[in-house]
């Protein structure tokens, strides 16, 4: 307590040094807190967008479907799967999809595209198809030949809402599937390939055309807690027959996850460089103040204060200052992160670039994770303590007389 009181007094006595140190450390802390919040936030957002636009958090497929997506590797009993997922805890929504490739007839030219039968109601929650509507309407569970298609594909086929279109494809029994459908709605997710190549029908109608009743290529599950997706996948894997596999987005979108990791590594390298210089600056400032008080320290030693006590006093000062700065910085950084968490930054000019990489994101929110903020604060606290350590230890090595005469 005594040490703390003296340390506090000294801090107040050396106002300039204290202010510079506090300013420096708190700004750095704020920078770190904000940068990691921004990095995490933008990566989460990019992954989230990529996951949520269409693939979904958790996919159940037939064992070999991902390696060989053919009609030989279908989910054969969506009814049973539906019942099983329904009674599994932690599931917010789930639905079947049947993806197939068809040819759309536009004049005499045939344009290939994906045609997927979806369950319109659960699909509203499973993907962003519903919220990406730009013209017309979304599908309903009673729809028949109503087609929901990407805007870019509509442009390529030169059709609009209200127009009819013909497609031919293969049904699940390899029969011919062909029909006229009316375009009822257009969607735009921002992913060029998806908007330029995907179309959707209500699954009950689709099933009549494609002879795919009770069949599916994918069964998509939305966990109640997106963070708990791995546990949910593991739980489902135990209950599912060996013919099926349940995979989270981490497996289905491995490349994207890795890319974000690489980006984080580069981000931390950059932060690391900034930290190196800040580390030195704090060290320099501690050195300057400690040595400006070298005579005071010499006197203290001369009147019988032990080196341990001096060390404790200096460390105490350093600790109080660091703690203060880190808290202040954490608060500033946290506030910034929270503000940009609520009001994401917009990057309209980079839309093109993001699209090219399949990231349909134009605004980047910060993450607001109190635990991460505390982690960053702890890192900065240790860093600033560490950077003060060398000058403090060094000054304590002087003999009292030497110290008193130090210029």
């Amino acid at each position, binding site marked *: 307590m005594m040490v703390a009181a003296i340390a506090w007094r000294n801090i107040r006595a050396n106002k300039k040094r204290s202010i510079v140190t506090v300013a420096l450390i708190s700004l750095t802390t704020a920078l770190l807190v904000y940068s990691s919040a921004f990095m995490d936030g933008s990566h989460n957002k990019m992954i989230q967008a990529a996951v949520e636009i269409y693939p979904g958090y958790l996919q159940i497929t037939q064992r*070999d479907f991902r390696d*060989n997506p*053919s*009609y*030989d590797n*279908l989910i*054969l009993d969506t009814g049973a799967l539906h019942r099983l997922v329904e009674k599994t805890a932690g599931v917010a929504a789930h639905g079947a999809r049947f993806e197939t490739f068809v*040819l759309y*007839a536009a004049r*005499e*030219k*045939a344009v*290939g595209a994906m045609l997927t039968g979806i369950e319109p109601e659960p699909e509203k929650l499973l993907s962003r198809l519903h919220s990406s509507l730009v013209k017309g309407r979304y599908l309903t569970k009673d729809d028949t030949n109503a087609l929901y298609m990407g805007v870019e594909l509509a442009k390529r086929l030169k059709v609009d809402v209200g127009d009819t279109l*013909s*497609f*031919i494809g*293969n049904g*699940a*029994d*390899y*029969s*011919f599937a*062909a*029909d*006229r459908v009316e375009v009822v709605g257009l969607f735009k997710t921002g992913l060029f390939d998806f908007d330029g190549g995907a179309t959707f029908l209500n699954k009950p109608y689709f099933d009549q055309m494609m002879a795919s009743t009770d069949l599916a290529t994918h069964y998509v599950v939305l966990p109640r807690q997106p963070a708990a997706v791995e546990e949910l996948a593991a739980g489902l894997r135990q209950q599912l027959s060996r013919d099926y596999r349940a995979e989270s987005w981490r497996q289905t979108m491995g490349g994207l996850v890795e890319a974000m990791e690489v980006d984080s590594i580069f981000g931390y390298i950059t932060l690391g460089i900034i930290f190196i210089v800040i580390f030195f600056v704090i060290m320099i400032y501690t050195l300057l103040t400690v040595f400006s008080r070298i005579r005071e320290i010499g006197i203290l030693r001369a009147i019988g204060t032990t080196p341990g006590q001096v060390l404790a006093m200096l460390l105490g000062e350093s600790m109080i200052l660091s703690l203060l700065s880190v808290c202040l910085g954490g608060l500033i950084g946290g506030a910034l992160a929270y503000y940009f968490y609520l009001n994401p930054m917009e990057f309209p000019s980079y839309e093109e670039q993001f699209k090219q990489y399949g990231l349909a994101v134009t605004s980047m929110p910060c993450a607001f994770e109190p635990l991460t903020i505390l982690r960053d604060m702890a890192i900065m606290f240790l860093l600033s303590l560490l950077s003060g350590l060398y000058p403090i230890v060094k000054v304590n090595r002087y003999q009292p007389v030497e110290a008193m005469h130090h210029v």
Partner: protein
Amino acid sequence: MRLFMVIMLLFLLPPQAGAAITAAEIIKKVEDNLNGETARLAIAMTVKTSRTQRTVRLESFSIGTDKSFIRIAYPKKDEGITFLKVDKQMWQYVPRIEKIIKIPASMMQQSWMGSDFSNDDLIKESSISKDYDANLLGEDGSGFSLELIPHPEAPVVWGKIIMGVSRSSFLPTEVDYFDEEGVLVRTLYYREVQRFAGRLYPSLWVMEPKTPDKAGHQTIVRVEAAEFDQPIDPEYFTKRALKRFSK
């Protein structure tokens, strides 16, 4: 008639050591026997997979290997769908949507109506004598075994083909398709040779993929009626025919 004469001639001439038949000659005969000047077939095609089985009935009209017209007669759902192949182009007409669609190059490797034949199998003049060098691997009382190696520039995907040919009919009995590694990819069996309007013709064709990812697949083609070398209205081989003969 001409063919019959050839066959008769073969039976009349006793096989002699010096006059052994060459592989190329066998292939020529086989091709002549399989493809008439013109052909008109009624076919039932059954596609079997590990999960489903489906039968389609169709009528086919062809001149040589260049031109063919196919109309689906059964099941009801697909009735009236027509295909036209002229040289190396292929169109399809679907009455339900009243549209003629040209099959693009990118769809050529897709299976034809879910069968184990691809669009490509139908389109390419599978002219064995043109694309392959034939070697006689062996022969016995019942037939010949031929090894067919594609010419380096021939646009065929197979590494080699082994064909069994019956000595009595000069029709193929079994054709094994291998990839470049020498792995068997699929086998086509020709069975139940019957006489259709005076001509010997295999009435049962079975295509069996041999790769593990196609396990359980089989396509069975049964020729229910056939007519050869009768004149066929050239109108069948025009794009108009797709719609006109759909009904």
